[in-house]
């Protein structure tokens, strides 16, 4: 009896060992001789005039878009499919969070027949996809097909990362989103007597003081610390505005070890904390409470995400029993630019805002040149078409494409005028995570550094420094772990 048992065990062991080996054979890398992993086959279909003809090309896109953004994005894709009916059709798959990267990587590496052709990723994922050889150079494909756009005509703050440190450009960065501010026009005017919106930190502090003197029970700034992106976006923003950087060239952090950085990170924390300590903003606010205060005219500024614009305006209208149009006239947007710069308020650094940016990239499974042309055609349509830019901006995403940003359709759109352009006044200063495969650990440590500092009961300098040191070491040791 025992023998049979052992026999069965050995059999399953053998089976188990074969699986990874078999998978090896199935996927694996088909590297070219020169070490590249992409190729082109076939010939372009052209008509008599030499223009490209698309004959029912079917493309698959995996996107990281989710939540509130899904409907506007789906609408835009539907528009494209309608406009290119019979020529190009795009099928979109919405994936979430961490599984986006893993799903795309696995499918592309296994050459699955449902692998995506286009990926719409966050800029931060670029390095990971590159390391796992998931994507191919966009500029090369563009040149081969002749469906070209100017790859330099995008906001520099983000476009600098599109090459991921190589000689080719892999991604096309077309939009951005960070923390934004909504403000109550009437309340501002009441407080300061003028329509002028504060541009620097000292101006903001003075407005807050004036408000607090008149309404000691209320807080001029509302925000929700438990919001998804609050600490995640604000901490890097504060660091950048104080002239710091997130990690060194070797990808490790020196937030504590480098003296200048230490001072900068301390200032960054203090700059956010100072609003709480001066009584201008509440601490530890639960979701929804900030919105309520703003809608009840208890605060001038409300710091939150750009894609809630519609909800906020209509919620304000309901709460104050006016129409949506009237509400739109009472609320406008301003940016967090300059809010956290403790010194050098008017420097270039003070203008920086940190957030996420979406990019389009072509996966390596696209080999047929007609498919490549179709992908380029779509990217061109999305990044040069002003209508699309305006639509996507209404969903809360500012365009990074110079072409769209300068067109009249875009610049005259009322939401662009009232909100988008005010939210991101200096597009070239908008920055994202950059090129590191460990971005999620960097992000998590920055986020918890801020959230824990803000929740401290006794905020002393040494407490902040302790936290900075802890988080820096946590990040560095985790990177060691990955390199193991």
């Amino acid at each position, binding site marked *: *009896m025992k023998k049979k048992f052992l026999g069965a065990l050995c059999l399953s062991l053998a089976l188990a060992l074969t699986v990874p080996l078999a998978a090896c054979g*199935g996927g694996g890398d088909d590297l070219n001789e020169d070490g590249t992993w992409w190729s082109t086959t076939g010939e372009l279909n052209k008509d008599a005039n030499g223009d490209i003809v698309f004959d029912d090309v079917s493309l698959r896109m995996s996107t990281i878009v989710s939540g509130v953004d899904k409907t506007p994005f789906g609408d835009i894709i539907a528009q494209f499919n309608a406009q290119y009916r019979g020529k190009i059709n795009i099928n979109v798959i919405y*994936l979430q969070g961490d599984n986006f990267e893993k*799903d795309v990587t696995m499918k592309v590496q296994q050459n699955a027949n449902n692998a995506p052709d286009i990926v719409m990723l966050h800029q931060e994922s670029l390095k990971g996809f590159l390391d796992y050889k998931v994507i191919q150079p966009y500029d090369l494909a563009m040149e081969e097909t002749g469906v070209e756009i100017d790859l330099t005509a995008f906001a520099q703050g983000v476009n600098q990362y599109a090459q991921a440190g190589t000689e080719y450009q892999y991604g096309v960065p077309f939009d951005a989103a960070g923390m934004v501010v909504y403000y109550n026009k009437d309340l501002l005017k009441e407080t300061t007597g003028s329509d002028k919106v504060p541009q620097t930190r000292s101006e903001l502090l003075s407005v807050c003081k004036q408000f607090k003197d008149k309404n000691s029970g209320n807080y001029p700034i509302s925000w929700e610390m438990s919001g998804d992106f609050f600490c995640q976006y604000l901490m890097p923003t504060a660091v950048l505005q104080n002239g710091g950087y997130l990690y060194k060239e070797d990808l490790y952090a020196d937030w504590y070890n480098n003296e200048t950085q230490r001072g900068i990170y301390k200032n960054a924390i203090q700059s956010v904390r100072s609003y709480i300590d001066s009584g201008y903003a509440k601490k530890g606010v639960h979701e*929804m409470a900030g919105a309520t205060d703003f809608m009840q005219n208890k605060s001038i500024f409300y710091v939150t995400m750009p894609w809630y614009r519609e909800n906020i305006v209509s919620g304000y209208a309901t709460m104050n029993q006016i129409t949506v149009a009237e509400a739109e006239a009472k609320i406008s947007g301003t940016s967090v630019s300059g809010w956290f710069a403790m010194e050098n308020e008017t420097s270039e650094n003070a203008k920086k805002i940190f957030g996420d940016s979406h990019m389009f990239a072509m996966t390596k499974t696209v080999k047929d040149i007609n498919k490549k042309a179709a992908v380029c055609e779509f990217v061109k349509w999305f990044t040069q078409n002003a209508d699309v830019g305006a639509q996507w901006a209404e969903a809360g995403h500012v365009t990074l494409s110079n072409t769209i940003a300068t067109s009249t359709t875009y610049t005259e759109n009322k939401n662009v005028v009232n909100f988008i352009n005010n939210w991101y006044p200096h597009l070239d200063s908008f920055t994202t995570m950059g090129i590191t495969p460990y971005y999620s650990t960097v992000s998590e440590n920055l986020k918890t550094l801020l959230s824990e500092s803000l929740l401290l009961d006794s905020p002393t300098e040494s407490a902040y420094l302790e936290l900075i040191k802890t988080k820096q070491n946590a990040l560095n040791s985790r990177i060691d772990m990955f390199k193991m």
Partner: protein
Amino acid sequence: MMNGPKTKKRLTKSQLTARREKTVAFIVLAIAALLFVFPLIYMLGTSFKSDFDLQMHPDKIFPSPGQWTLKHYNGFFITHSGELDNMPKWMLNSIWSTAAAVGLTLLTDLIVAYVVVFLRWKGKKVFMKALFAWMAAPAVIGTAPGLMIYQTVRNALGVSSQAGTYALVYFWMIVPGITGVFNVILMRNFFKTIPVDIIESAKSDGASHFTIFRKIVCPLAKSTMMVIVLFTFSASWNNLQGPQLLMAGEGQYIQTITVALAESYGGSSAWGAQGVSMATAVFSMIPVLIIFIFTQNKMIEGLAATGVKG
């Protein structure tokens, strides 16, 4: 019968104690029942509160007069673009997958237990020993590789369509659970208590195993079957971890109710969604409630009858 004046019967001491016991029991149970059901009542009441009431009066269990609304239940079926919204899909997913899990598990347990108890074959002891050993094994180390196998199979099959993905994910979700060893052992223990004589007499009457199975063993096993149905039902319906792993990264259409609710409303709740989250919770409990109301007596009696003796 003599209808004399009614004399008060004097209760015996044990009858008095019994009555006192019952009063104490009644009070304790009433309080316990109230505490247990209270959160559910709160859930029901809050789901009908209007947004205004939610913000102004968080301390009330039921909406103030004039603030009752069905608004939170509104978005369940049709979204503004006319498509079928997700709630019914999630509900259907949970319902049919749980039904399949329960049915298949029951069938498997009956068959396996019957084979183990009533058939004679070599290797029976090894088989039973293996089952018991498996109960002690830390199955948790199989989660990561299980996921890898699933991914590899999926890519090997080249599943691309929504329908294909759906079929594969649910197959992988339901089938592994069917071999739950605890239920097999439960059923086997019950079968062992069936007196051998009945089986012998049926055999000597010329009945095949199949007839014995169908006509004698199965009807006897009704109470154990109920127990297994109940266990499997709640385990499958409320399963969060396993399905969450499998469904990670897929579209929302594929989720079961439990996974969908946990992801949308777990922890610090979503923006302005208190009323909606309560309404979805109430809505998702409706099938459970229906089954419960119709079978609660029988199931609880059945559960009590087997008494899971060690």
